[in-house]
């Protein structure tokens, strides 16, 4: 397993998931109640029908249904159009985790739902902004209740930047998580903003996220959820799967993921795996005009996508190849970190070259956003691990 597609809200989403599964470029789908309704509405099939369609495309597909409780209880959430049909997740009719009884009821309802859909059990959780305090205790309480009901369930961790920078407190909390002995972890970094690439200027946060994945992966499979290109770093720290998609809402998780509005402007993008980046087509064409052979190599020997179908195919192929390359370099961080470093060193040489060309849209801001900040966080992690 290496690439998983997160649920999305675009029309045609299910068709594109089936297309990706059929091409074998992705290995699984992670559905969620904010994108797929329990009961069919408008153009959105019910979750049961969606799962049936995905299984019809590929019977062996791994499908997870993330209950996304962290979004439901997040202050400011307004995107209830699909989630509103999942009332079965809250037996008392209100979204609340206030007290052991409500926690137990919610966890049981989540597992009942997942069992009825014949999908693996994924525990709910709440978003954390620090590894101690009432919210962290609530997350542990939920996780222990989930483990009490089913020791094999997948556990979930969703946390903000301040959580990942908490140093020894973070490590102590991860120690508590490890005690759950989960078979699999779904680890989601909650970003402050919705844009991609994410803001990785806080190197300690990236290092803390990677250190956590490293620790959890010693005993469990780890999915680096909503991480896209940055997820390649997570694979080097021990994750064995990366969550991605074709829209920002799939590639990243932020509070905006659970709020309505927006939609953004339509642009066609071109993956450049040689630079660990993705550029709008006009930028890709500018690079192509200046240095065609280099541009072709940076795109992984692909043409600039001429339509969304091409873009999706190239994205999954290039990201999947990279994740696969890192995962196949060894069972854990000790082997994978050197492989990742090799990839980063090659990409840095390519970035230096493309920066020297003075192409509009490929400047220091893009270098920092797509590459340098991620590398600095990785370097901090690797240095601390002495890898």
């Amino acid at each position, binding site marked *: 397993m290496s690439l998983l597609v997160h649920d999305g809200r675009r029309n045609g989403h299910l068709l594109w998931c089936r297309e990706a599964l059929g091409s074998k470029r992705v290995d699984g789908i992670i559905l969620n109640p904010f994108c797929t309704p329990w009961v069919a509405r408008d153009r959105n099939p019910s979750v049961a029908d969606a799962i049936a369609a995905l299984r019809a495309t590929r019977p062996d597909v791994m499908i997870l249904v993330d209950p996304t409780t962290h979004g439901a209880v997040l202050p400011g959430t307004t995107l209830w159009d699909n989630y509103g049909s999942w009332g079965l997740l809250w037996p008392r009719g209100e979204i609340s985790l206030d007290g052991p009884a409500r926690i137990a009821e919610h966890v049981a309802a989540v597992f009942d739902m997942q069992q009825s859909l014949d999908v693996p059990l994924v525990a709910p959780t709440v978003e954390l902004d620090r590894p101690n305090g009432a919210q962290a205790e609530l997350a542990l309480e939920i996780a222990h209740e989930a483990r009490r009901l089913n020791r094999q369930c997948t556990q979930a961790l969703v946390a903000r930047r301040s959580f990942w920078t908490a140093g020894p407190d973070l490590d102590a909390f991860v120690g508590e998580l*490890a005690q759950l002995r989960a078979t699999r972890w779904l680890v989601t970094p909650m970003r402050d903003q919705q844009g991609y690439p994410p803001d990785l200027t806080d190197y300690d946060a990236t290092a803390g996220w990677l250190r956590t994945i490293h620790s959890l992966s010693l005993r469990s499979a780890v999915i680096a959820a909503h991480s896209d290109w940055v997820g390649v770093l997570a694979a080097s720290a021990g994750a064995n799967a990366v969550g991605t998609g074709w829209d920002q809402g799939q590639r990243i998780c932020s509070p905006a993921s659970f709020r309505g509005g927006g939609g953004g402007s339509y642009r066609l993008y071109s993956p450049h795996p040689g630079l660990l980046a993705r550029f709008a087509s006009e930028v890709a064409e500018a690079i192509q005009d200046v240095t065609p052979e280099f541009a072709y190599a940076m795109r992984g020997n692909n043409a600039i996508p001429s339509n969304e179908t091409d873009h999706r195919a190239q994205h999954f192929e290039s990201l999947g190849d990279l994740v696969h390359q890192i995962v196949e370099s060894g069972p854990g961080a000790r082997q994978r970190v050197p492989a990742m470093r090799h990839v980063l060193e090659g990409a840095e040489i390519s970035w230096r070259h493309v920066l020297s060309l003075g192409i509009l849209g490929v400047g220091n801001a893009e270098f920092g956003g797509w590459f340098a900040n991620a590398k600095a966080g990785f370097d901090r992690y690797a240095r601390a691990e002495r890898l």
Partner: protein
Amino acid sequence: MLDVVDLVALRPGGQKLVYAGSSQGVPVVLKVISLMPPHQALVLERARREVLLLASYNDRRIVSVRSGLAVLGDPAAPHGVAWLEEKLDGADLGELLGPQWAPSAVAEFIEGLAGGLTLLHEADVVHRDLSPGNVRLRADGTWTLMDPGLAKHLRDLSITGVFQPGTPGYRSPEHVPGGTPGTHSDVFCVGILAFAALTGELPIDPSGDERSYFARLRETQCASVSARRADTPTSLVELVDGCLDRQPARRFLDAMELRNAAAQVREDLQR
């Protein structure tokens, strides 16, 4: 009341007074705790839990209790509590540390201590104060755990109160105030004891002020035992270092895991 005679004072144990004596002709140890304001309720509850915990075991790897908890003074406002434990033969670990032990003896020690600790961890109890004075080698070679006075049942509310669990030099990163010692913390402490047995030194120096000691505990990865004793077999290095990882998620998570790994190392070293 406790029927004990021929009392001889032994070393004090934490907040306890400890005496050797005889009860109905059988050698025993009498433990007495004063209940002084303002924490007498906490101390009483801790003593009650310690006696209940010890009474729930009948295994040579955990010291046996020979009486219930006796209240000293006015039952409505007791000034102390006391109970009897079996008097163990052999020697405290503290008397045995200093010279460097043979690697195979250290592997046997880890396996034996982890065996007793397993009994606690299987019941979701954390000892929280594994130190040379709380571990004894019986004459028959059995490693026995004593003094779980700071033990905590993971399902119970903490009653540590004003008492910071652990002994300086023998604390884990989770023992630092604000932390929550768990089974992985006991594993760390076994690692400290094993490190001390192998090298005659402590892996994390407790000297200086408490704040700097706590900072070292939380933020510093101690050196591998191989750096202090180069002839340590690799499998034993991995075992001890695997206890002493600063990050709890990367240690053996509990005594069961540690005991199984130690048994493997012991077998390897005996081949």
